[in-house]
């Protein structure tokens, strides 16, 4: 059978810096094709070239048997390519329905949008994903996960020949991932091809047929999933020998079960509104406490309440035994608390500022010397962190928006580590980060607690929670409902704890 899509010899430079040197990709009709590579390998760029968002410098693209010169996402859409981009690309102010049907609204009289039909269709599509929500409400009033699912729903509803998913699961929890897989299989069985980008290699083995591996802007291989192993893939991505990697071992980071006695943070029946109605936990020096929960369970709100982002309506926070009432993040930072946000784009990076400026943003007050910023020390600090965290940037004055997602995340982590916090709150710290970097980040977190600090870890990846946390506080509908402690922390236990509360409430 002729391939649905062939891309060969694709090259792309951004202002002289090559992002793609020689990329190629071939997708058969009706296959689920994975695209993997380290952060910055060029996956997203390749996709954007395919959908016409970027123009390629060189190379051939053939789609559905004809050479393709798409110059806009719109053209790609009508050619039969539906895309879920890595950065959410919906319009939060507009309703869920609009976000789903825009571009192909049902009409009456040929020009008037038939809203009842649009809502019905949206509900129907979303119900395939197990989502029952008010589709007339603004999309932005829902969680990232729901927004992600809506984006997927939109793409899936488009009758495309090829659906591209750039890290669709990065903000989903396991049950939603399952739903997504169901949908992907459905697409496949109806002959639609899927291009699937993910850093979760396990996922690939569940749903993909073939995998293309990219490294440094080049396509370095394409395998049948059945003929490969996770280790192989990692080796190919990193450009190293599989044995070597095995020898190093991607060591498990299971938290010790040491006794923690010094309480640094005590959260007592804290509420900030309907999304966080009763939250209690304690955090000890040297401990990683995980927050487990389904989407919308209020984990992010819990973190925000500690960081002074949402004013408390009731309850108390105690920091090192003293009552603590931060009204602004700056107060929390002064109290040596740090908070890595889950929404990198909206709340994390300042896109036009350089890596250097982004990295030191939370640290400025301590860089003050003679009324101005001590630039020497700033540079030292920044190069130190770039080295320590292995941040891939051409120089420290490169605008952060030009970095790949994973590297942006590392810069943000560095921003907080640089403030030398006692308590580090991490909301989905490894979202969109490649396996190598993920291990690195996890190692950094581990070192950090070993130095006697404490971490609150929010993650929708059960594996990450279970491996990393010394204790897990389970949240449900804005309340902390139970706690898992070592040695009782297993994925099963966590799933059971969640399911228990899920069943308990209608």
């Amino acid at each position, binding site marked *: 059978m002729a391939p649905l899509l062939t891309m060969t010899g694709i090259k792309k*430079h*951004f*202002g*002289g810096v090559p992002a793609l040197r020689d990329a190629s990709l071939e997708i058969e009709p009706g296959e689920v094709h994975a695209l993997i590579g380290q952060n910055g390998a060029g996956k997203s760029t390749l996709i954007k070239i395919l959908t016409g*968002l*970027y*123009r390629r*410098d060189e190379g051939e693209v053939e789609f559905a048997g004809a050479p393709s010169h798409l110059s806009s996402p719109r053209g790609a859409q009508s050619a039969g390519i539906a895309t879920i981009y890595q*950065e959410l690309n919906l319009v939060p102010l507009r309703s869920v329905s609009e976000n789903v049907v825009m571009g192909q609204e049902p009409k009456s009289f040929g020009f008037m949008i038939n809203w009842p039909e649009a809502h019905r269709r949206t509900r129907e599509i979303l119900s395939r994903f197990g989502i029952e929500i008010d589709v007339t409400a603004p999309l932005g009033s829902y969680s990232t996960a729901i927004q992600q699912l809506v984006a997927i729903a939109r793409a899936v509803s488009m009758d495309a020949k090829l659906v591209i998913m750039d890290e669709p699961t990065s903000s989903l929890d396991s049950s939603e991932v399952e739903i997504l897989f169901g949908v992907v299989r459905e697409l496949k069985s109806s002959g639609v091809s899927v291009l699937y980008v993910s850093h979760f290699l396990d996922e690939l083995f569940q749903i993909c047929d073939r995998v293309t591996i990219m490294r440094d802007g080049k396509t370095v291989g394409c395998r049948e999933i059945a003929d490969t192993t996770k280790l192989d893939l990692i080796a190919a991505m990193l450009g190293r020998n599989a044995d070597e990697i095995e020898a190093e071992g991607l060591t498990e980071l299971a938290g010790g079960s040491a006794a923690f006695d010094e309480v640094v943070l005590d959260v007592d029946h804290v509420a900030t509104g309907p999304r966080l109605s009763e939250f209690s936990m304690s955090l000890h020096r040297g401990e990683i406490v995980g927050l487990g929960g389904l989407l919308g369970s209020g984990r992010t709100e819990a973190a925000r309440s500690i*960081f002074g*982002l949402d004013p408390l309506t009731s309850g108390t926070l105690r920091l090192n035994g003293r009552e603590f009432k931060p009204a*602004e*993040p*700056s107060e*929390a*930072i*002064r109290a040596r608390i740090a*908070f890595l*946000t889950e929404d990198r784009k*909206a*709340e*994390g*990076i*300042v*896109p*036009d*500022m350089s890596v250097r*400026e982004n990295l030191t*943003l*939370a640290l*400025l*007050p301590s*860089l*003050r010397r003679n*009324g*101005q*910023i001590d*630039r020497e020390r700033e540079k030292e600090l920044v190069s130190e962190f770039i080295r320590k965290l292995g941040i891939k940037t051409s120089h420290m004055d490169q605008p952060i*928006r*030009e970095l790949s997602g994973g590297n942006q995340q590392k810069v943000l982590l560095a*921003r907080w580590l640089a403030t030398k916090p006692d308590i580090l709150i991490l909301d989905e710290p490894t979202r969109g980060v490649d396996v190598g970097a993920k291990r690195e980040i996890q190692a950094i977190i581990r070192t950090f607690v070993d130095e006697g600090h404490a971490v609150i870890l929010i993650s929708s990846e059960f594996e990450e929670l279970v491996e990393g946390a010394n204790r897990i506080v389970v949240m449900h509908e804005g309340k902390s409902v139970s706690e898992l402690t070592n040695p009782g922390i297993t994925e099963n236990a966590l799933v059971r704890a969640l399911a228990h509360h899920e069943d308990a409430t209608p």
Partner: protein
Amino acid sequence: MTTVTSEETMRTDYTSRLKDHGGLIALAIILVFNILVTPNFLHTQTLAVNISQVATIAIVAMGMTLVIATGGIDLSVGAVMALSGALAPLIFLSDFGQAYPVLGLIAALLFPLLAALVCGMFNGIIVSVLKVQPIIATLILFISGRGIAQVLTNGNLQTFSNPEFSYLGTGKILGFPFQGWLALAIACLLFWVVNRTIFGRYLLAIGGNERAARLAGGPVRGVKIGAYVICSVLSGLAGLIVVAINSASDAARNGNLMELDAIAAAVVGGALLQGGKAPIFGAILGAVIIQLVKYTLLANGVEDEVALIAKAAIILAAVYIQQARKE
């Protein structure tokens, strides 16, 4: 627009360098044109005249640049000029001012600036605390600020003769107008503030991504209020200069339409209306370009109505060059 348009960062070095200096090139073209066409252009007096006229626009444009850097805009600058300009003569012409000329003079410089500061606080608080969109927030003082100035003076033109005060507008140092030196000093100070201080860094961060700046502990409200206050105080200063040159304060006309000139100067100088950039010397360059355009058209007898069209075309061209550079 970053993701969609960054595509265009791809340019040969040559053109991108050309565009980096778009403003300077525009300036060079205007200068050459004037040297060839405008009678007596190469004359120190011409330079002095232009400096004295550009100073007020430049001073206000620098303040505007800071506000624009936060992603805001300040329509009230002209009204604040009128207000501070109206207060100064009220003070030194008052009984107190006549009885104690020195104190009166100092008060006549300080109080108007203080009033301007209050206006800036008002704007800044509405924008940052009440979260009202800047155009509308500053529209309030745009409408009523001038009204307050006129209420204070009963609408009357206040004329005076006070050489000490008038030094602000007519004094010369090394043969060049005092207000030109003043503008230069302010530019250096603000350049330092923007590029070297923590306030400046936060300012740019807030314009670049306000939520991120807040999460990183940035004092968002304080910095925004600060930007509006600086802008207002500089406008107040410009208002005093205008009054000083004319030896008269006309609350109805002082600073009229200044907001448009200042915004145009800031943008021609490279400020991005969505925030995140604060090119202080760019603002001066923008002000100089606008001033020279005005001068060129006037000196060559171009009719007012045609001059408007020419001004429009030049603003478009200058910003087009600037804009192409951005992406």
